[in-house]
């Protein structure tokens, strides 16, 4: 696990927001909204199709979505080569903007974009992935989850989900689609929107990949929803124990697991209590890439519960749970 200790003498890293969403969900509307609101901030924007953005901005860059594999033995370590180059170029103009927004095409898998920020040294040193924001069409998402694996990836990967075009569906339908989202990803913050209308601070500055900001991993699913809509393909599983873990058992297990099951595990997160360790250990991962660190001491009023979450495809719940519980000291 790479060290990610913040260095006080270094200038703050530039936050990067990844904007995904299936075709026609309202991504560009959201992007235009972010760029046009009077928040006094300036963004560099990486887009795939020029001309969609109605705002005059000299920091709009066209990308080619060139995904390639790293030759590092990590079979799912795909990164966006074009993004590495673009960010290298943008960094020459640092000071000109406060954040970077990367818009992906409707059919894109968010993983290579996210992994780019962990795999490339320069990009990782100067920028930080803030959050994956997914815009979903309230009316059509249900169908897309059935026929479009890309749409499902985007939901599974999201830290923030805008359930958009709420005016086109009834309250019952809205609840239904929210429950379907929760079955896949119980942790993302869902916001109901109309014409992608949302306060910017609900989309930007989320710190979703910031280890310091992993506070709790309590699924926020609606009552009963988790059970009703069990997505056979993509789901999330979560296990916890109040017995302290043995780091010498846990690290080999999680490394092995992500090496072998990495392609199926889209996201993982954990808050762990190790034996004889006063600190909370937090980690988060994208496929095979794991990032973890001691976070802060456990508070006296806090239950020392270790909790771990996986979002992915074909997750063997029993085997995962047994593996996790076998790490108890």
């Amino acid at each position, binding site marked *: 696990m790479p060290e990610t200790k913040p260095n006080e003498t270094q200038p703050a890293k530039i936050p990067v927001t990844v904007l995904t969403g299936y075709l026609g969900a309202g991504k560009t509307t959201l992007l235009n909204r972010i760029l046009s609101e009077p928040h006094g901030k300036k963004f560099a924007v990486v887009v795939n199709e020029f001309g969609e953005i109605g705002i005059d901005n000299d920091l709009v860059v066209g990308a080619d979505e060139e995904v390639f594999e790293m030759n590092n033995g990590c079979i799912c370590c795909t990164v966006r080569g074009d993004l590495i180059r*673009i960010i290298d170029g943008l960094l020459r103009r640092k000071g000109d903007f406060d954040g970077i927004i990367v818009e992906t095409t409707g059919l894109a898998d968010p993983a290579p974009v996210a992994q780019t920020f962990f795999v490339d040294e320069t990009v990782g040193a100067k920028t930080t992935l803030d959050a994956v924001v997914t815009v979903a069409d309230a009316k059509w998402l249900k169908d897309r989850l059935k026929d479009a694996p890309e749409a499902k990836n985007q939901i599974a990967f999201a830290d923030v989900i805008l359930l958009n075009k709420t005016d086109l569906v009834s309250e019952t339908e809205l609840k239904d689609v929210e429950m379907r989202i929760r079955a896949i990803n119980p942790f993302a913050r869902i916001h109901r929107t109309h014409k992608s209308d949302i306060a910017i601070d609900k989309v930007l500055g989320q710190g979703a990949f910031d280890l310091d900001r992993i506070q709790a991993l309590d699924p926020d699913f609606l009552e009963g929803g988790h059970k009703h809509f069990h997505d056979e393909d993509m789901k999330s599983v979560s296990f916890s124990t109040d017995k302290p873990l043995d780091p010498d058992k846990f690290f080999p297990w999680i490394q092995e697991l992500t090496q072998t099951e990495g392609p199926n595990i889209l996201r993982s997160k954990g808050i762990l209590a190790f034996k004889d360790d006063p600190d909370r250990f937090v980690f988060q991962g994208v496929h095979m890439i794991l990032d973890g660190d001691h976070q802060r001491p456990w508070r006296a009023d806090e239950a020392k519960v270790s909790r771990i979450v996986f979002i992915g495809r074909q997750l063997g719940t029993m085997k995962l749970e047994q593996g996790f519980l076998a790490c108890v000291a």
Partner: protein
Amino acid sequence: MAALSSTPSSITSKLRRLDLGSGVVGVRFLGTTAAFALGEGDVVLAGHEETRVDAHKGAILSLASDGKRLVTAGDDGRVVATRLDGSSETLFEQKGRWIDHVAVATDGAFAFSVGKSAHFQPVKGERKSLDLPSTVGGLAFAPKGTRLAIAHYGGATLWFPNAQAKPEVLEWKGSHRGILWHPEARFIVTTMQEAALHGWRLPDGAHMRMSGYPSRVRSMEFTPGGRYLATSGSTEVILWPFVAKEGPMGKQPTMLAPRDVRVSAVAAHPKDEVIACGYEDGMVLLARISDGAEILARAPAGGPVSALAWRADGGALAIGTEDGAGGLIVL
């Protein structure tokens, strides 16, 4: 710093400091004047006086020189040539696109790339273009003649823009970024997205893998005659031997000027086997390959050294850093 205490010589008193105001992308000598290309688009010509030229309306992404002009490519979609007298000329413009890379041939022809296309502009005649399978990572003209090496995903392409022949493709999996010819055109070397170099022997295309770096190699240069390839990326300068016909294959590299911080830029002296080594803490050392002797040229300060260049006669060294500090040393 044990390496320094054994070799206390220092020429830091000869360092002329320049406040350039924005990160240095690269530097080249035009005669006796150092031309600094800056991240915010300016070119600063530092001779007896300093002249600032407003070359680009955005970042400079790449630069090259034939000794008379500094040719820069920018995210403003322009290729600009800046001359010693401070005049500048737009050589090419494509609005709304980034010009990612530029290279200059000895006869004054130049090449540049925009996304997946490479373009060649001869001194006289029409521009020629070549579409590559993926975005161009780097461009380099052969030491003699008009042959262009183009790095991209999956390998490199060798293109004779003046010939009808199909470009030759050198394959190797991965993302190739920087590209360099051996001075005798016996080898092509690329820097990769991974912390490694790849090379091909010409003309048979035999592979050379040069790995073991702790970080990506950003800077590399051949020593005079091409005996060694000096590279950044480690906490010492890594020198791969290229004297033998098979290049560095099966041989260990030589290490020079070891420290506890990484080398961020290298420049090979044009006449002697001396390497200027810039480090991530702003320090610059001159190191002699034969005995490892070191001379301190710039004490550690500020950001990483991002640019180094020797004057053509080897009598001066220009230094640039990521945080906009410049330096000139006349030896």
